[in-house]
């Protein structure tokens, strides 16, 4: 039980971190460097999972993606497949809950890059995308890495929304936090202890790394 939960957690969280990394960076860039109508709205929506109780977020996810959900309903009718109770649901729940952390941290990191560097790149003939990858990203990379590590840790510990959207299906969606919950409820102290130890060790390492990375990058 421990081993399968551990493996599942690792796979789910790795997938979620990839999703978070790409989308989080995109949102962070939009919020840091672009002005548009509804910008504050976007910021609020992206921050929401950080502030709402996880079960509320889970509720909205199930209303959206469930077999009779706004998006999940048509999907199920056409393909007979729904995301609920599959490992993908665990990935979605983890990604949604950890995204705000990535966006906030990355946005701050991107905003800390002097815009003059980006303008210099434009005067040298480069477009926005090339400037982002060759100048902005490298200069912001420590903060962005910190964001990724933090998101990874948050995704690893995700419970409430996962329980609602993915359910507790051993081997398929029973990640470590769900396994701990079940172990405690079933009176299996040793299992609970081992799982808790693993999660704590990973979280402490993540916090340590985040702090080290967050010390601003100094050139000279």
């Amino acid at each position: 039980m421990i081993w399968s939960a551990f493996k599942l957690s690792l796979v789910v969280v790795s997938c979620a971190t990839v999703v978070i990394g790409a989308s989080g960076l995109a949102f962070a860039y939009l919020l840091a460097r672009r002005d548009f109508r509804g910008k504050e709205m976007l910021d609020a929506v992206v921050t929401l999972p950080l502030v709402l109780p996880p079960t509320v977020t889970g509720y909205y996810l199930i209303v959206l993606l469930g077999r009779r959900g706004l998006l999940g309903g048509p999907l199920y009718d056409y393909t007979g497949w729904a995301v609920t109770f599959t490992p993908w649901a665990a990935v979605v729940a983890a990604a949604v809950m950890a995204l705000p952390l990535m966006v906030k941290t990355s946005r701050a990191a991107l905003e800390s890059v002097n815009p003059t560097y980006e303008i210099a790149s434009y005067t040298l003939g480069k477009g926005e995308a090339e400037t982002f990858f060759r100048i902005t990203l490298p200069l912001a990379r420590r903060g962005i890495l910190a964001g990724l590590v933090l998101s990874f840790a948050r995704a690893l510990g995700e419970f409430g929304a996962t329980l609602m959207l993915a359910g507790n299906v051993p081997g398929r969606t029973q990640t470590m936090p769900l396994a701990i919950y079940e172990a405690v409820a079933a009176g299996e102290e040793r299992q609970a202890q081992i799982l808790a130890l693993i999660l704590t060790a990973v979280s402490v390492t993540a916090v340590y790394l985040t702090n080290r990375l967050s010390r601003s990058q100094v050139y000279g």
Partner: protein
Amino acid sequence: MLSVKVRKRLGDGRPNGAGRAAFTLDLSFDAPNGVTTLLGASGSGKTTTLRLIAGIVAPDEGAIAVGGRVLFDSAEGINLPIRHRRVGFVFQDYALFPHLTAAQNIAYGMKAKGAGAKLERAGELLALFHIEHAAHRLPHELSGGEQQRVALARALASDPAIVLLDEPLSAVDEATRSRLLDEIAAAQRAANVPFLYVTHNRVEAERLGAYSVTLGHGRIIHEERLK
């Protein structure tokens, strides 16, 4: 070679005003090839003029053309993005990319294909400015004078149609300044494109400029052909 006719309202909380009292930039001048100096006290609109030409900021109305090529024309609805303007810019704080070496900075804007060709050309420019030794150093390891040369080399390496310099010598000491002025003049002759050089220092202007425009409170208060 450079034709500028622009109007822009600045100040009172607008994006480019930054807390200054509101005033309007309203200028029209034509500069020949060679070094044109833009003189004026702080806040007279010199840097803003450079930013308008580079495309960092757009005028409210007007037209800007370099070598006959239109960069901006409010009547025609033309507003080229920065990267298409072929404007070399030497910023006041140089804005050298901190994570790239001097050679990499210079090679950044080159259009030549292939890393080899680029680094070779970068080497040539470094030699031109007598800073070959700086090739593999990071910007923070260079002196102010060296950084300024790298910044100018970088701008020239991108094969610009015009080079804009924003008070490039303000952070450099007296002694080095004189030498750098000569190098800038020489660089312009070699590149054979117009240089627009912003400064508040009359002496610099007189040493450099073939043509000098003085700004006061957003308007041209004096124009002079010097040589």
